[in-house]
């Protein structure tokens, strides 16, 4: 039986088009939406497990202008799910091989690969897209992307965002049989940073356990790559992709385990611990990628409602699927522009502020630099400026700033233009 396709839906009006939704983004126009779809420009971030699926789903849905960015090369362990790659492609650029495959299969599509880091592209690059779909596997890149796209939104005097400057981000992620897809409309819905708490930092073992009282094979492996490697090879960084380096770590961990009579150090576990490997399968990637592309198609054409705002999928025990509004965080430093307020004793050192309140806090910054309106308090780079401001780290706040003074913080987890407002009031 021959069936109609997506164009039939685009050409018809219905009771559930975008304007009827909780998040109306525009009005569905049956006379133009096919054309809108064909001329839309989509950026796909990541050409891995989700990326390969996303590219295929877009190509099969009538999208014709796609760009894809990824910095990775193809690894043999990708082949169980990243179906645009073959054994012969191992070692090649993910974005280039994926784009070439799509181009061969769908010659009518314009697809442009970019090999590199998203952080290295200028802002103007991102401004040209109607929708960005992100299939990233790490929190840092997602934070950067999110802050960058939120920063692109122009806000008028009343604080209302200019809709034409809003680029929706559709973000997907998977882990084993679980995953989530979400829609971020910068400055309208919650953003990635609002939900940072739900992506806890990687769990590490206490150093004293690793060094003194190992009990699990994981403790021995951590000892090998965190303590023993730097001791043995002070000038050489561990290359986690090098079989020689990994073999050394495995053997070192194995020897330590033998010594302590701990069982279970295997090469597979060593790889898992050192590279923090997250299990990944084709099926979950297919589900989450397709759910993301559904949202992209709807956001481009307004042909149906928008996911509001977060869908989680848990497939281990039956299927638990839950769709809900992920609320905006009241004081989200990225999308509300809220000022971070701290009340601290005036003898707190600048070093303590950075370590305890900017890095190891809910802000989870990496290498923050701080300036006040009148002076530079601490800069991580360039080296000359760092050397000049380093003495400030040991100084107490009362010798550096006034209580309640407005400070500005920048950090590599956010784009260069983005700064956080910080106000420290003395106790």
């Amino acid at each position, binding site marked *: 039986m021959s069936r*109609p396709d997506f164009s039939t839906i685009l050409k018809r009006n219905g009771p559930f088009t975008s304007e009827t939704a909780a998040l109306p983004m525009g009005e569905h126009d049956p006379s133009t939406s096919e054309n809108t779809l064909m001329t839309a420009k989509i950026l796909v971030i990541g050409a891995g497990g989700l990326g390969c699926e996303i590219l295929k789903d877009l190509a099969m849905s009538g999208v014709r202008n796609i760009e894809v960015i990824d910095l990775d090369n193809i690894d043999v362990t990708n082949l169980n*799910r990243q*179906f645009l790659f073959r054994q012969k492609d191992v070692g090649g650029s993910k974005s280039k091989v994926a784009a070439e495959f799509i181009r061969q299969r769908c010659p009518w599509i314009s697809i442009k690969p970019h090999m590199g880091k998203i952080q290295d592209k200028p802002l103007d690059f991102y401004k040209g897209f109607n929708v960005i779909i992100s299939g990233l596997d790490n929190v840092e890149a997602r934070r950067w992307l999110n802050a960058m796209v939120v920063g692109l939104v122009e806000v008028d005097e009343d604080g209302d965002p200019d809709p034409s400057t809003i680029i929706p981000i559709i973000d997907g992620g998977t882990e084993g049989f679980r995953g989530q897809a979400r829609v971020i409309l910068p400055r309208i819905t919650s953003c990635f940073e609002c939900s940072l708490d739900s992506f806890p930092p990687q769990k590490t073992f206490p150093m004293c356990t690793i060094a003194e*009282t190992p*009990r699990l094979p994981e403790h021995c492996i951590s000892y090998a790559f965190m303590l023993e490697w730097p001791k043995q090879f002070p000038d050489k960084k561990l290359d986690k992709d090098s079989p020689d380096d990994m073999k050394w770590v495995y053997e070192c961990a194995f020897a330590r385990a033998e010594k302590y009579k*701990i069982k279970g150090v295997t090469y597979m576990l060593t790889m898992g611990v050192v590279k923090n490997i997250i299990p990944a399968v084709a099926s979950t990637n297919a589900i989450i990628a397709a759910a993301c592309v559904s949202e992209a198609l709807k956001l481009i054409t307004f042909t149906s409602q928008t996911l509001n705002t977060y869908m989680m999928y848990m497939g281990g025990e039956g299927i638990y699927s839950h769709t809900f509004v992920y609320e905006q965080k009241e004081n989200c430093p990225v999308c509300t522009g809220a000022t971070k307020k701290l009340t601290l004793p005036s003898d707190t050192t600048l070093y303590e502020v950075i370590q305890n309140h900017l890095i190891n806090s809910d802000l989870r910054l990496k290498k923050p630099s701080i300036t006040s309106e009148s002076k530079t308090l601490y800069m991580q780079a360039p080296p000359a400026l760092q050397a000049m401001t380093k003495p400030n780290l040991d100084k107490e706040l009362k010798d550096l700033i006034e209580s309640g003074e407005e400070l500005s913080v920048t950090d590599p987890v956010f784009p260069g233009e983005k700064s956080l407002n910080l106000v420290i009031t003395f106790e």
Partner: protein
Amino acid sequence: MPVSLLPASTNKYDRQLRLWGASGQESLALSHALLIGSSSSCGTELLKNLVLPGLGGFTVIDTGVYPKEGEYSNSTMTIPSSNFFAPPPSSSTEGKSKAEVISKTLNELNPEVVGGYHVPSCSISEFITNKVEGASTPQTSLTEFIKQNSNLMYPLSSSPTATGATGTILIIGNDLSSSDFLSLSKISLSLSLPCLLVRTYGLIGSLRLQSSTSEFTILQPRPENFKWDLRLNSTSLNPSTFPELAEYFDKKMQGKEDMDVQQHSHIPYPCILSKAVREWQASKGKMSSSFDEKAEFKELIKKESRNYNDELNYQEAVEKAYTAYAKEVGVPGEVRDLFEREGVKVLTPTSSIFNILLNSLMTYLEKNNDLPPLNGSIPDMTSDTDGYVELQKIYQERSLNDLKGFTEIVEEKLKVFGREGGIPDATVATFVKNVPYLTVVPSKSYYDEMTEPLSEEDKEALMEQIWDPYEAFEHSPFLWWIGLKACEGYWMEVGNWPGKNYEKGAEAKKAEVDKLTSMMLALFQKYGVDVADMEAEDEPSVSKPIIAKIAEEMCRFNGAEMHNVGSVLGGVASQEAIKVITGQYVPINNTYIFNGIAGCAGVLRG
């Protein structure tokens, strides 16, 4: 070399072996999927997600033939052919069957998989049911095809290999008519094979899972949370039944007063807890479950510490205090309920492996003070290395010993029926490791769902599912499931999907929407759902305006195929297929509905 033994860095299956392990991978490699109907993307996407992880083999069954080159051009159409694995017609595909081309492109994904195809010389309906109108020559039916090719599809028998792996032949019906689905359900049951029925319709999709029997028995559900069995409860903590553990506890607590700070703060918490239990029993007798006494028990532990805030091991003991006064040991109530299943208490020569193991567990419990064979795994805890390794060894040795005792019971049972060695050691070991998690998921067949009257219990279960708390009630998957069923009925009656005449004016459109609305109303009546005339303002209710809206949207879709909806359903279906094939994780009971309008989904017991 088995794939599971390849080094992690060169093993393309590494990322999935971390989920389902070597025996799951072997089961997958022993299994075969038959896809019936490959015209829409959902079925081929499903196969893709099984071919990539290393399914043994697959067969694509379709009657379609490829058009001539250029007859069908993607470059002039808005939406290309939605099937990624059916490339545009070219000189190399001309005249070939769709099944052949699709099978070949899918096979390129993984050369280790054996891909095949079959082109029935009759219609798909006739192929499934083996009823051919006025045929002069005998046709190959689905049943015949499976029998003839069973050697290609790996052992039909479900007896496990030495590693406990089993092969499964899975039947997949993709976007067929509801009467074909019905036949497929019935034939799968008669062949004792599991089946998956998938359908996409505009932004809506559904998946129906059916077991080869009336249930799924899961030996290895891989739960998110472990239930550690350390035998610290007052009944299991028994020096006469587990002397090695009691000796260890005594030894570790000896000379506690003379320990230095490091030693004292590294006594493993089970030692601390066991001492507290014995002291409590000596002074008060029975462990109590009252709130006050529990608090008192925790205080008793705290008092024994030197500096509670610094001693992580004492904090762990307080945190785990509940394991000392927990009534349940080892076998939870849900698992004990399984003993009441038919065929567990009395075994027969044809008893299933699962029932024999459950029966053996009952015998084991009788002989062993109601304690199951010990699992043997222990969690990480604050401890010095030697103390931890020694404790781990005590539990592990006991566990191996228990497993031996359990295996002997199993062998005795098998011997009665001349089935010695009929259950591989690996399967027995998996069972023992999973006693607290054993799961049975009932599976009603699609055939029964469609042909038998709904029981009151079924109705109640369905009612609960209507009120799934979504932001907007009109998106409740239950309502769209009814919409989809109504469309299937419409197709059977009219011969096309509703919404065909949408462009022929308001009246023609209204006639289709009205007809579908009344078919939906009839279904709600069948399921015993009250339909209100008007939408209630204060609370969600099934009302005529909502039903009419859903009918209108279903007419708008007119059965349209969207690749990405097929891909969602193909993904979900392949995940369920992997659960069924590996016998790991827990499959659904029994219908998954995706609502791509709101991006929500739900599982219904149809």
